[in-house]
């Protein structure tokens, strides 16, 4: 075959491979939505799950997922922000920084099930938090920290050095330069990174099955006393999330309409993650425009 024919052939193959990938995504989405959307109703989204009968919902699991997400972000954002500021603004190029960067890289490469088991060992057993939202949120924080730190550091690094020099030249300390000039300018990037991290946390299950537990006790949504076990706000109660719920239904098989419930729950999960993605893009662009008044 001549070089030109090879060229045509290769380009054809590349087109085929790419089309195949696009087809995979569309068939996945179509499958989830076609199977799942008919299951979704107000009842389904608000009713508690039933294990041996038809017609259970995902209300408690959905609430648990959001509550856990909120708590995780509440713990991990300040930590990641501080760590990112240190790495981006203060860290010198020396052995200490090398160790720190290696540690973060190692953490991000650990399988989430290992992080979950560590959470089980330390938070659930050693600290005696039991299977609880608190244990789950701490495990998810560990899971979330390396990526969040890196995205925040990247957005800080993306601010041009002249802004720092301008701040220092005005007589501001380095800390003031960071908090008054660099951080506000980096907000669009940081927010985008946070929302994408939220999407990852929302779908995570392996780190949660042995930390937040696999049961969802009934909640009384009128009870706002955080001490009470039926209160949705209580952080010491076991809390099965939506992702864990899907896993559990499918590996236990005691729910007669398990396939329908998991289809509906999967659709909700995927839609939520899609929403996080779209919001992150939109917000990032919008804030960028506002900040640069372009």
């Amino acid at each position, binding site marked *: 075959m001549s*070089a*030109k024919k*090879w*060229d045509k052939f*290769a*380009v054809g193959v*590349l087109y085929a*491979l*790419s089309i195949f*990938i*696009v087809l*995979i995504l569309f068939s*996945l*989405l179509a*499958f*989830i939505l076609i*199977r799942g959307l008919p299951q979704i109703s107000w009842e389904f989204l608000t009713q508690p799950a039933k294990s041996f009968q038809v017609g259970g919902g995902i209300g408690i699991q959905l609430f648990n997922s959001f509550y856990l997400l909120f708590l995780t972000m509440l713990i991990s954002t300040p*930590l990641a922000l501080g*760590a990112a*500021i*240190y790495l981006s603004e*203060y860290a010198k190029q020396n052995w200490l920084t090398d*160790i720190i960067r290696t*540690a973060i*890289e*190692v953490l991000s*490469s650990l*399988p*989430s*099930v290992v992080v979950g*088991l*560590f959470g089980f*060992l*330390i938070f659930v057993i050693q600290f005696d938090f039991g299977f609880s939202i608190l244990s789950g949120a701490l495990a998810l924080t560990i899971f979330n*920290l*390396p990526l969040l*730190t890196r995205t925040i550091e990247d957005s800080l690094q993306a601010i041009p050095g002249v802004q720092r020099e301008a701040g220092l030249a005005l007589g501001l300390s*380095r*800390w*003031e330069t960071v*908090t008054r000039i660099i951080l506000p300018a980096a907000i669009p990037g940081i927010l985008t990174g946070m929302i994408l991290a939220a999407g*990852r946390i*929302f*779908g*995570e*299950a*392996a780190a949660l*099955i*042995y930390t937040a537990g696999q049961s969802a006790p009934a909640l009384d949504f009128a009870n706002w006393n955080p001490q009470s076990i039926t209160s949705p706000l209580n952080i010491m109660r076991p809390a099965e999330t939506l992702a864990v719920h*899907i*896993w559990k239904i*499918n590996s236990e098989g005691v729910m007669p309409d398990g*396939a329908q419930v*998991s*289809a509906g729950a*999967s659709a909700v*999960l995927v839609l939520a*993650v899609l929403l*996080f*993605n779209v919001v992150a893009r939109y917000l990032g662009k919008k804030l960028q425009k506002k900040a640069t008044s372009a």
Partner: protein
Amino acid sequence: MEEIQAKLLGNSKKGRLEKLGKTVSFICIAIIVFVVVSILYFVTSKGLSTFFTDGVSFWGFLTGSVWSPGNVGENGQPLVGALPMITGSFLVTLLSAVLATPFAIGAAIFMTEISPSTGKKVLQPVVELLVGIPSVVYGFIGLTVVVPVVRSVFGGTGFGILSSTFVLFVMILPTVTSMAVDALNSVPRYYREASLAMGATRWQTIYKVVLRSAMPGLLTAVVFGMARAFGEALAVQMVIGNAALMPTSLVTPASTLTSILTMSMGNTVMGTLENNVLWSLALILMIMALFFNILTRWIGKKGAMK
């Protein structure tokens, strides 16, 4: 006089603020490092207690093919051979990487060399969405679609290494693709221009110039995909069948390190042999994650020297 002296020689208000800020941000990073060190320490010490506290032979654990913790074999040693799970993990990782690599690199070439505009408008969002789909959803789809299809085409129960390979293939595809795109994008433009100016066709340029100079980056991408496949727990656990037996074919139920871990951890009591061997499995997982990490660093270094 002394007041002025103290004011001049001591730290200013701003100086104190600066110190406070630096300390606080350093504490944050120290917490992260501390967490990493304690994960490494606790998993290692728990994982090693099988060998030091319970006296299981290290070699027997790695090469034994019978997994039945709680039962004792003929030689008086507990039956805790982890070889079936180790084999399962390596098989699904290698097979899915072999399957995903051509697709991922093909799509990456398409996005960077053939049609960057379509790549950016269509493939980029597709890849990002595929990354975002949670692993339990992949597992659920694997259970309801892949397993029945494998069952009707290849026979058996449908649960097994083949189904896991297909599920992992889709899961690591976006990771490998987006990293391969970065690798191809970092090849300088003038390499391509020089090659085209010498009369090479587009494919010759891609094959002989772009792919070769991006090789370290592409390898890193594949290793990352393998690391993700090796550590994936729930999606695999849902479709592999979870039988702790040496895999005899690709369509019989098998197990991986992660699948046995998620299945059994809740059914054992802390401190017993049954529980400690599970931590040994976790230790293998962690060591492999570190190994993949070192491998990517090594590839990066090798590639940078050229």
